[in-house]
């Protein structure tokens, strides 16, 4: 059982040390890799100074490209599981273990969900989440309670798939596509913190465009895509 924590970081100089130091000190049983996505600030310099395990992308590729670099690393080094973990401190490390335990039961993707046993608040922020849940339910007949959660554990065949596929990004539409392809997806209750420092990438117009993109992708594109034949994926032998 080997888990890689993939930490995509873009301009996270204020958060990266706190987040990674917490993982190193309190969770030494897990491996991690920071993917610096061409940050304009000194995120990479901080990581190098502190001796972190770092993939330093020379240009900005966006979250999908950065995460994929982490998945390629996971595949190359023969990890069994990989988790996406935010560099801004929103994800809490104590929930990695229960998510991993769930994934070991034979699930392909385990989502760290805020709303398994808790109710989704009726706010504007959660309207988008509700729309995505409805779209996924409509196309896959599965209820995903927290589709926008970025905290997801992937197993070995998912690592192999996500590392090489052009159109698989760590987003809700890929989760829908994977469900449609027959992947087993589960949700585990987690709590998330508000971002402590720095600014969020998502402002109101950006998040509206993001929701529109996701809904169109789930309703009109993923439905027509031919499913991935998961049974054909053979993880390469180590070494």
């Amino acid at each position: 059982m080997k888990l890689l924590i993939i930490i995509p970081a873009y301009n996270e100089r204020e958060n990266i040390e706190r987040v990674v130091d917490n993982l190193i000190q309190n969770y030494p049983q897990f491996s991690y890799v920071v993917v610096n996505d061409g940050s304009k600030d000194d995120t990479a310099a901080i990581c190098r100074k502190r001796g972190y395990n770092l993939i330093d992308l020379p240009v900005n590729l966006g979250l999908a490209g950065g995460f994929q670099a982490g998945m390629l690393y996971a595949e190359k080094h023969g990890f069994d599981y990989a988790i996406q973990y935010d560099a801004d401190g929103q994800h809490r490390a104590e929930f990695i273990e229960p998510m991993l335990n769930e994934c070991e039961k034979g699930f392909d993707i385990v989502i760290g969900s805020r709303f398994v046993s808790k109710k989704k608040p009726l706010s504007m922020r959660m309207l988008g989440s509700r729309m995505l849940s409805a779209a996924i339910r409509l196309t896959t007949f599965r209820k995903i309670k927290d589709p926008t959660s970025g905290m997801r554990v992937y197993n070995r065949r998912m690592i192999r798939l996500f590392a090489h596929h052009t159109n698989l990004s760590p987003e809700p539409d890929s989760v829908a596509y994977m469900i449609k392809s027959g992947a087993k997806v589960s949700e585990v209750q987690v709590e998330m913190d508000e971002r402590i420092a720095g600014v969020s990438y998502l402002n109101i117009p950006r998040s509206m465009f993001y929701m529109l993109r996701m809904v169109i992708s789930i309703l009109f594109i993923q439905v027509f895509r031919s499913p991935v034949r998961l049974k054909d994926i053979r993880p390469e032998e180590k070494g």
Partner: protein
Amino acid sequence: MSDTLRIVLIVASVLCLLYMLRKISQSKVRIDDAIFWIVGSFVLVIISIFPQIPSWCCDLLGIQTPVNFLFLFMIFILLVKLFYMTIRVSQLESKVKELSQRYALDHMDEKEEETDET
């Protein structure tokens, strides 16, 4: 709008849609880039099924025939798209430039290290 134009529009937009979906399933187009074309062909299908929409726009803008409105509308959309593509190409070029410079400089260091050792 004439019936022939309507039929041509419907057939063309449906074909466009099917072609795009096929290319996406072959992983040749990124979904982000395909969304423009899919939304575009949906709009075309809607316009060809309900020609009242362009007619209504014509009355509103004082344009004589719906076909003229369609030309204006399409050319405008394509201009915006072209401008957007120009930005994308520029960004891509500077990224490729940055990458090759970085690659070349990194390899220079490696060679220096090799010569140091010998």
